[in-house]
């Protein structure tokens, strides 16, 4: 019996959300008094033995570059086989793009119950109950899994990565990889930018910025903070910013440590996408903007004056540290 954690990689690098999943899975293993192991698919340039620092003793790898693109069908088959081979009873994913594609499919294959979007360790005192976010972050549900094997996908940015000591061994998994029925013809990645769902800090703009030509002040602040950038729905709809930056109920849902909303009124649909952020800062010239009710810090003022001053203040503060 063990806990198996799916380690997601992109361009040969282990994703930050997977490090969270490893820490989380290792903590479940500790709770159950069993071993924690990982599985990675495809070719990886990172040193996988170093993942031992996050609490796993072994990494199973199917070292085949045909797996560098996510094909849910192939992934599910291989991961399910690895679960059977390793005798794992709990399988952990990050609830990121790959997890959303694969976790439920593996669960169905194994006939295992799944909690997707988990946000806390399971309660194993009476059964196996996992807390997850529901209603787009407006509430939580405690879900009991009844099956022998349990699958959990963990919300990104909801479990703190802990780095300790340890080295993992690498075990090559000899599993036959079927030909993929999905032919990837193009990849458009915004290189160098922090992926929105993994970012610690997100700076976001709304209609209050009046037009795409005014985004410079926001980008300067984001650059100073090493933050990802986002926008509200009207901004995405008006094509002031690319569609993938839209956060909200029908856009991307994020949970950074710090969310800075500039010129966003804070409609309930927008809040649904960002209310899991740990600290929310709202800058808006309208003191009645509903977003202030959901914020931790706020400035009622003109974004065009406040934002450059904030960038300068942060720059100055960093210089003095």
């Amino acid at each position, binding site marked *: 019996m063990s806990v198996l954690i799916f380690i997601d990689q992109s361009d040969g690098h282990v994703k930050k959300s997977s490090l969270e999943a490893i820490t989380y899975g290792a903590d479940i293993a500790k709770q159950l008094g069993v071993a924690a192991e990982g599985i990675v698919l495809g070719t990886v340039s990172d040193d996988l033995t170093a993942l031992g620092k996050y609490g796993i003793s072994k990494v199973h790898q199917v070292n085949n570059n045909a797996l560098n693109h996510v094909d849910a069908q192939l992934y599910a088959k291989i991961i399910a086989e690895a679960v059977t081979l390793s005798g794992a009873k709990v399988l952990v994913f990050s609830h990121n793009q790959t997890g959303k594609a*694969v976790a*439920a499919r593996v*669960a*169905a294959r194994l006939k*295992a*119950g799944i909690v997707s979007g988990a946000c806390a360790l399971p309660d194993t005192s009476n059964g196996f109950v996992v807390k997850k976010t529901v209603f787009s972050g407006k509430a939580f549900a405690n879900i009991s899994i009844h099956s022998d094997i349990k699958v959990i996908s963990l919300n990104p940015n909801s479990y703190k990565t802990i780095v300790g000591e340890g080295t993992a061994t690498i075990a090559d998994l000899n599993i036959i990889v079927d030909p993929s029925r999905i032919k990837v013809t193009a*990849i458009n990645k915004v290189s160098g930018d922090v992926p929105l769902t993994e970012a610690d800090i997100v700076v976001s703009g709304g209609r209050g910025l009046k037009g795409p030509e005014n985004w410079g002040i926001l980008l300067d602040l984001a650059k100073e903070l090493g933050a990802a950038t986002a926008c509200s729905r009207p901004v995405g709809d008006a094509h002031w910013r690319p*569609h993938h930056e839209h956060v909200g109920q029908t856009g991307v849902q994020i949970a950074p440590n710090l969310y800075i909303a500039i010129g966003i009124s804070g409609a309930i649909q927008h809040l649904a996408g960002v209310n899991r952020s740990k*600290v929310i800062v709202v800058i808006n010239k309208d003191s009645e903007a509903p977003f202030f009710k959901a914020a931790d810090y706020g400035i009622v003022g003109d974004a065009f004056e406040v934002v450059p001053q904030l960038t300068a203040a942060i720059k100055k503060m960093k210089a003095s540290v």
Partner: protein
Amino acid sequence: MKILVCISKTPDTTSKIAFTDGNTKFDESGVQWIINPYDEWYSLVRAIELKEKDAAVSIHLITIGTADSEPIIRKALALGGDEAIRVNSNSSDAYFIATQIAEIAKQGGYDLIFTGKETIDYNGSSIGGMIAELTDAPYISLATKFELAGTTATITREVDGGEEVAEVDLPLVVSCQKGVAEQRIPNMRGIMAARTKPLKVVEPIAADTLSSIISYELPPAKAGVKLVAADNVSELARLLHEEAKVI
């Protein structure tokens, strides 16, 4: 060419979220029910667009729910679609639901199954992948664009930090999100036509329930906003650094 579109009923996005019966049930009082936006705006509308281009396309809708979900499925039929199937069950377990849809899918011989990327109440993102597994079909999740030429689909999907374009032959299961299509409003002709479109009710097949909701919780209330004066911006930087410790 047959498309199956999965439809679920969710509370309106502006609904107040509250619970009753010792936090074990969602409080439905005063809640307006809508078609899950991802199912409606993206997957259903895209299926309708495909039918508008090619009259040989037929669209069937499926929902898992009790009789009170019929207004929602009629509303979906008012947008488009030829007929609907309701599997009579109030289950909330993803595996049970996916098993029902997969059963209908196998019987109906669909070329394409559309789901929304998730429902806005349960946020599971599970059904599409499970249907694909249970019908042994390829699965493309988080699609932002869907084109079809003959029996080959060209799909843009969201991946970590960007997008990927892929070609896949039918049959296929796709979960749709923003970008796949634009929201439409049903017209009077559609609403009238929906009244007489076939809505078949079937009983669920036997399937295991692998999970159940034990209770709900609301997040702790925020302490309230700490306002900083607009002429003292550096104080905000200091608070974020020293008090909130986030920068």
